[in-house]
């Protein structure tokens, strides 16, 4: 089987709902479709019957059937839609959780590739779309198959007994072939959809990119630069949309041909039977064409969703996380450490030791790789060569949970600072410190039940610092914790850091922070060296 179909099946399986619910949804759907068709067929049969063989008895029988169908149909549909949506929702929660958990395990360098543009934004929409896999593809598809089978069984059982079997078999064969034909178009649908999504993604990414820069361009009187860039993407998108439409059109005739052939089959193969049944079967043949159209739409959806699953699959694999326990000795050692980013060496052959409780500043021009070095020290970034160890254990081998509790890292541009103070600081972790007091010491006076909304950059930095202390870490790594802070706030930050006896490593441009540290390393052109005071 080809790759696209395999992937669809794989993702269907990954988000498979509980079997009981699935069976219920399929049955409800199938029976609802059958009653829908049955109602019309029954009504027509009633009329034909009344016209041909006037007699109350015959009519009354059909009448009862029709009314039962009329009353039962809508609740069945109701149940079907509800259970279908429930299935979709259950799967989407699963995918949302999965997305956060997998992206949360990535190394920084990998995350960075995705975080530019709106790839993460799109992955969010992709997980949302996956619910359509069950809701708008699998269930309608399966329901229609159930309808086919039930319809054919009804035809086979029509009186005179056994005479309709040939027609029923012909119908089944037709349904099978038509479905197969429709399914075989999926590959090109997926291909066209991939091109369309690519163009749409490029258009949206360009929109996002330009939205950041256009206000400044307009001020500079260069709005035309943005307009030209967007125009190029717009044309590509329009082209891809046309192509996708053309591919969808390719299978348009299948339901028609299948319907026409079914009518011909009926004409040639119909047994000598009451015209009522001929009319009934003719109506079912027409209904077959409609059902095939449903399958077509379901397959279009499948193609659309397959793009999402394809992209999400690329987010899937993640590095193995270590399981070594947190070492008692917290000496940090780097040996022949080499770090690379975007094909350039940021750090070459760095070897150093930081003893427990030491305060170390890392300085260097912007862009020299200080942030990357800090991330490598706390195991958020893999080393290109060489090793970082804590107490002799490689950082990347240490159990993730313990490592994160014991080594804290404060990013240069911290985020996740909106919401209730308690949640922002706690994040579900076991607290070892009084963070309200820490916040107060940093000049932010709030209690746990108040909310952070729009914080300034300086406030965010201080909140992030207080948050990183919550678990009582033994090693604190902070990237420019005082940039943009006033002299007073800088003192507060340093005082708070002094109140812990942890090892402290900061990247900084700030002279005061440098003086406060025991040692200073300078990173210039990939060389890390210890400055002598």
């Amino acid at each position: 089987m080809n790759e696209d179909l395999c992937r669809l099946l794989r993702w269907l399986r990954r988000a498979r709902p509980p079997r009981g619910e699935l069976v219920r949804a399929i049955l409800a759907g199938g029976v609802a479709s059958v009653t829908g068709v049955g109602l019309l067929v029954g009504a027509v049969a009633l009329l034909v019957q009344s016209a041909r063989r006037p007699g109350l008895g015959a009519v009354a029988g059909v009448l009862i059937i029709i009314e039962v169908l009329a009353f039962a149909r809508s609740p069945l549909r109701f149940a079907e839609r509800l259970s279908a949506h429930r299935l979709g929702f259950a799967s989407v929660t699963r995918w949302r959780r999965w997305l956060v958990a997998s992206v949360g395990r990535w190394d920084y360098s990998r995350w960075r590739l995705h975080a530019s543009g709106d790839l993460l934004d799109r992955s969010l929409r992709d997980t949302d779309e996956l619910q359509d896999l069950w809701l708008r593809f699998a269930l309608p598809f399966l329901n229609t198959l159930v309808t086919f089978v039930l319809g054919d069984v009804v035809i086979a059982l029509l009186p005179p007994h056994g005479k309709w079997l040939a027609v029923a078999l012909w119908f089944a064969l037709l349904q099978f072939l038509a479905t197969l034909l429709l399914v075989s178009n999926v590959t090109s649908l997926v291909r066209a959809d991939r091109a369309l999504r690519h163009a749409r993604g490029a258009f949206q990414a360009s929109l996002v990119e330009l939205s950041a820069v256009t206000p400044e361009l307009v001020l500079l009187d260069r709005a035309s630069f943005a307009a030209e860039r967007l125009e190029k993407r717009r044309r590509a998108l329009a082209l891809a949309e046309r192509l996708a439409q053309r591919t969808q059109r390719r299978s348009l005739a299948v339901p028609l041909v299948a319907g026409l052939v079914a009518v011909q089959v009926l004409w040639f193969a119909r047994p000598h039977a009451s015209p009522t049944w001929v009319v009934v079967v003719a109506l079912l043949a027409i209904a077959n064409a409609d059902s095939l159209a449903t399958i077509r739409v379901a397959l279009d959806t499948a193609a659309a969703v397959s793009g999402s699953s394809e992209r999400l699959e690329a987010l899937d694999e993640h590095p193995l996380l270590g399981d070594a326990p947190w070492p008692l000795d917290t000496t940090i050692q780097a040996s022949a450490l080499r770090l690379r980013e975007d094909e350039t060496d940021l750090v070459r052959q760095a070897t150093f030791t930081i003893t427990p409780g030491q305060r170390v500043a890392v300085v260097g021009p912007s862009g020299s790789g200080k942030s990357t070095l800090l991330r490598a020290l706390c195991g958020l970034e893999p080393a290109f060569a060489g090793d970082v160890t804590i107490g002799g254990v490689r950082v990347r081998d240490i159990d993730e949970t313990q490592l994160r509790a014991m080594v804290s890292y404060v990013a240069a541009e911290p985020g996740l600072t909106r919401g209730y103070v308690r949640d922002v600081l706690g994040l579900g972790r076991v607290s070892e410190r009084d963070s309200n007091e820490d916040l107060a010491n940093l000049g932010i006076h709030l209690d746990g039940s108040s909310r952070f909304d729009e914080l300034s950059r300086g406030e965010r930095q201080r909140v992030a610092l207080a948050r990183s202390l919550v678990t009582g870490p033994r090693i604190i790594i902070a990237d420019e914790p005082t940039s943009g802070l006033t002299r007073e706030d800088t003192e507060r930050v340093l005082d708070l850091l002094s109140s812990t006896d942890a090892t402290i490593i900061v990247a900084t441009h700030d002279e005061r922070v440098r003086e406060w540290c025991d040692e200073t390393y300078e990173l210039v052109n990939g060389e890390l060296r210890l400055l002598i005071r």
Partner: protein
Amino acid sequence: MTSARVIGVVSLVLSFGLAVATAVALSDLAHRSTSTAFVLLSTVLAARWIVSSALNEWNGWTARVVRGAWREQLVAHLRVPRAEGERSRGDLALAIDQVAAGPSLETLATSARASVVGLVIVFWAAGWLSTLITVVLMGLAIPLYQRAGRRSEVLAQDYQRRRALLTVRQLELLNHAPELRALGAVRYGADEIAAISDSEHAIAMRALRVALESSLVTEFLSGVSIGLVAMVVGFRLLEGHLSLEHALVAVLVTSEIFLSIRRFGVEFHRREDAQKSMSNLAPPVTTNRTSRDALVVADELVTGASATRFDFRVHAGERVVITGPSGSGKTTLLHTVLGWRTPTSGHGAHADVPIGFVSVESSLVTGTLYENLTLGRPIPRDRVHALLTQLDLSSERFTDLDVRLLADGRGFSTGEKVRLALARCVLAEPAVLILDDIAGVLDSRARASLRRYLKELEGVAILEATVNDPLLTTPFQLIEVTG
């Protein structure tokens, strides 16, 4: 929209016509089972297919036209920076897709309304009783439908709120995933999302239940209507008052009437989405006035971020420094005089001249360094190189101007990006240069060369916001923001 309505009526009339043709074919089949009956049946099948395909094509075509028209004027939406918490501008593309479905939904609405005409056919075919049944049941369906619609609207708003919350939160977590990992809170984040997602779904299920109840009502009434009409017509057939052909027409047309109402009911919420998206597509308003006497003006200006009242003017060539602690509202002040934010009172204005704005958030676009710096105009490379050297951007990464940058200016540090943005501004020859707190991300060497460069930059007014370390050494004016 008129053409959408016309198409709606035409497609409805055609579908009624086809229902009648089907009835004729079936009655023919019942009476004689001749080849003409089969031919007629095949023709009906083909005609139905042609009508639905044509409608499909028309939908595709109008959607394309609508999308094209909106996309062409999208740049107007990007004039103002994104406010905090506003969703990504990529969503504009989605809003356009929703609006593009507008015409096809309008045809469905028109068909549903026009389906009343079907009653005339039913009356002609089967007399007043069948018509009465259909009218009464339709009359029952509509108020019930509206009631459910109102209820589901309330729930849907609730749901949308939850959903927006969920999306914002999840995006926040993803955009700070390395931090989440560094804090050891990945599982917490995933659980939080699952919890919000579940509560979103609980509301969604409630909204759905109501929405489905309304379709339950139409389905139920349509089922009962078809059944009752068939019964009435059946009895009249038995009595010999009616021909089979007429009877079949009555039943099939009744089914068609309810079908078009139901189709519209299914797409009802999409129509509302389309209308809502339409309002999202209104371009942002810039409230700024044009000033004639000075380059930048603040008149009794109070912004949303601080209580300070600002009153200043910046004239050609002047150097102005705005200071204040972090969070005191310096950036908001700058955004307000540029017209990106609405003032609380007073007003800000700027002259209609090129203005360079540089902040830590200034970003680059994909493309070469040369494109990024010249913004599509021919500028001699020597000049670009000379400027970069003056700004202390002389390492090997800046020697080749034709190397394509990585997306988002990756590979450059913030300090370098800020200086590239500054170079971009200077090359566009602005009359005013506004620097929003960029000194903090520069190392001491870069800071020194920038100080030197800005001092020598003649004929350009410079306005700088900073916490305590300005790049402008001899300001003409000092404005303090106290918070």
